[in-house]
């Protein structure tokens, strides 16, 4: 009855990386993308199954089988258009999305071999398009409605792109000197080249969006003032406030928050000091505290900046680390060492006020806590001291508080995040929407983009409804 199926390759087409010796000495991107032939070969592995579990697991619902089919047929131009229908930042998502937990997790091919490397294909087609310059199809007729977006991170840029495509006038207010949010200040060059973030932001500007940098909302204008000249406001200000542990000696010289360290290195390009003016101090014995992506990014950056030894100290075990597995592997490959089930309790300084030692306590894992991970419990009397000259505290960030402090009637949680209606991003204040880390606390780039997409849809409906109500008056 059934035709004999052609034999499918079960193994993923691998993507080459910069050699180890070389890459730990530079900030260039570690992974090279697929070449055309490699991309087509990987695309040919896709079974084009009807179920498409990949699409269901994508927070922005990219039509994955279809763009892969177009790659297979070498119709790259159409493939990138297909991706861009749903995802305005594909070159970024192709690099930093946790595909193994999302689109690739339930891939049908994964049941008999390696799942299709959707991330690498997305990256390939996005780079293909970017190198040739994105074309903007006909601009839609202006609706006459204006939307202010606060924060040019993944959530804000997504909202801006989606609303501009619908003909609304969008102004994005960004507090830093460049758009991109965490993509520009947080994720290092070797994982996400900044030229790519700049190109994606330029594409969004080509859609008609105005991006206004150096504009701190809450200081320059309040949300209330924005509502006087905009029909709606989207708040995507992120989680940028660093946690410290509040333990003795934490203000010694040589101790950074991961945010400070990464902002210096990424946004201010301190790795190119003194060509660039902003310096970053990195000693010989660096310890990074924490187990998330920022911890891995800090550790790998410190290594590239000349540290002899870099340790990651994490209070739980390897299994509970919130970072992507791929990042731990990359870090280990590069020579980063891990000290699990340990937590700093205080720091010692030298006579000049610089950190020289870190006292840790060993931990054991108890019952799972509200995060579902087993709670770390200190073991009495297990203290030990390690020599350090640089410490990077990467234990997470909380919500940026400025908008919440300056906006009356905006409901917030006890963690300072903004309360929204999940499906729409609607806040307690009329015309004000929110999404991304400012709502969820630190999460992923793609989940922020998903939230942005939902909010854009809801804002469009809100503006359309408002228009109709005005017309019938």
């Amino acid at each position, binding site marked *: 009855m059934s035709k004999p199926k052609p034999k499918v390759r079960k193994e993923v087409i691998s993507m080459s990386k910069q050699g180890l010796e070389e890459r730990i000495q530079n900030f260039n991107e570690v992974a090279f993308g697929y070449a055309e032939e490699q991309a087509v070969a990987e695309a040919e592995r896709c079974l084009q199954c009807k179920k498409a579990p990949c699409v269901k697991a994508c927070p922005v619902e990219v039509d994955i089988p279809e763009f892969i089919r177009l790659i297979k047929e070498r119709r790259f131009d159409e493939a990138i258009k297909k991706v861009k229908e749903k995802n305005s930042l594909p070159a970024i998502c192709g690099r930093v999305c946790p595909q193994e937990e999302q689109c690739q997790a339930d891939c049908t091919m994964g049941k008999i071999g390696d799942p299709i490397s959707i991330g690498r294909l997305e990256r390939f087609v996005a780079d293909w398009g970017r190198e040739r310059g994105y074309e903007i199809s006909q601009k839609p007729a202006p609706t006459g409605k204006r939307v202010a977006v606060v924060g040019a991170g993944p959530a804000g840029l997504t909202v801006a792109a989606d609303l501009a495509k619908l003909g609304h006038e969008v102004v994005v207010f960004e507090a830093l*000197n460049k758009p991109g949010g965490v993509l520009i200040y947080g994720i290092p060059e070797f994982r996400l080249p900044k030229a790519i973030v700049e190109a994606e932001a330029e594409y969004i500007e080509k859609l008609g969006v105005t991006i206004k940098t150096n504009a701190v909302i809450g200081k320059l204008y309040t949300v209330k003032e924005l509502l006087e000249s905009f029909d709606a406001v989207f708040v995507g200000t992120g989680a940028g406030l660093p946690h410290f542990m509040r333990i003795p000696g934490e203000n010694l010289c040589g101790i950074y928050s991961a*945010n400070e360290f990464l902002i*210096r290195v990424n946004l201010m390009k301190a790795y190119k000091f003194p060509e*660039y003016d902003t310096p970053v101090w990195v000693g010989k014995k660096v310890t990074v505290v924490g187990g998330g992506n920022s911890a891995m990014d800090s550790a790998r950056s410190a290594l590239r900046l000349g540290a002899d030894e870099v340790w990651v100290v994490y209070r739980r075990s390897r299994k509970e680390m919130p970072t992507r597995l791929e990042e731990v592997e990359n870090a280990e490959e590069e020579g980063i060492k891990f000290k699990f089930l340990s937590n700093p309790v205080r720091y010692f300084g030298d006579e000049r006020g610089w950190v020289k030692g870190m006292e840790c306590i060993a931990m054991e894992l108890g019952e799972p806590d509200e995060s579902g991970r087993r709670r770390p419990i200190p073991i009495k009397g297990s203290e030990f001291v390690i020599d350090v000259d640089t410490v990077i505290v990467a234990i997470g960030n909380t919500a940026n508080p400025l908008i919440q402090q300056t906006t009356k009637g905006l409901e917030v949680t006890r963690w300072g995040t903004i309360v929204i209606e999940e499906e729409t991003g609607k806040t307690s204040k009329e015309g004000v929407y929110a999404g991304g880390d400012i709502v969820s606390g630190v999460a992923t780039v793609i989940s922020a983009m998903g939230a942005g997409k939902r909010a854009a849809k809801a804002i469009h409906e809100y503006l359309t409804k408002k228009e109709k109500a005005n017309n019938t008056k």
Partner: protein
Amino acid sequence: MKEGATSLYKIVTKQELVPHINLFEFSAKEIAAKTKPGQFIILRVDEKGERVPLTMTGADAEKGTITVVCHEVGKSTKQLGQLEEGDCILDLLGPLGKPAEIEKFGTVLCIGGGVMVAPLYFQAKAFHEIGNRVIGGIGARTGDQLIFENEMQEACDELYVSTDDGTRGCKGLGFLEELLKERKIDRVVTMGPILMMKMVSELTRSQDIPTIVNLIPLMVDGMGMCGACRVTVGGRTMFACVDGPDFDGHQVDFEELMTRLKMYSPQEKLAFVFYEEDGSSS
């Protein structure tokens, strides 16, 4: 409200106050409309520049300008000093930090040193305008380094001048001890070198006079994201950029502040050397 795409920020006035200390008036309409005394801006001269925090000296909402006074102490400030009227800088961000508490306290003593006399004037004027009696005390290393004397003369009911070497006015802070003994002072505001603010805070402590210090430690973003500017106040860690820049001088750990301020001294020197060499070779 009108908002265009990001544009460069133009220097509308540049005035050399004394050698290596310049006053800059920048065109920055939106910032000017919101600025209050005590707040600061962060500027960046060009694409490779660092973010430089400067406490504002004034803002003119009608004219749409803000004013800062900058002392050339390193590469970035020197580079700014090379610019002329009509030139532009790449980034200008503000107003940052909490505004100073400007209320009717009675007699306010404003003590300023070095380049910080200029932003202190912004506060002294505001205190005076709402009916405080304002006593000023301004100083510099030597007489010819003194700035904003005429402005302070206008803003204060009385003005004392002091220099480290005694070339103008009294020598050192001796006049302050006498003032504190003889007068009833309700509030002290001090801006200047950390050592000076520390000494002022120590002098007022015994009489329990509320003493406000304005702190601009090392900063990167200036919006609470990096924590480089953390200072210990009353045993708690605060971020000068968002919790300050004004703090209770009796609660500040000045030793820690001075140590942290020196963290990048070797790099600052290196950058300066490179800059100077570049300048002489071109």
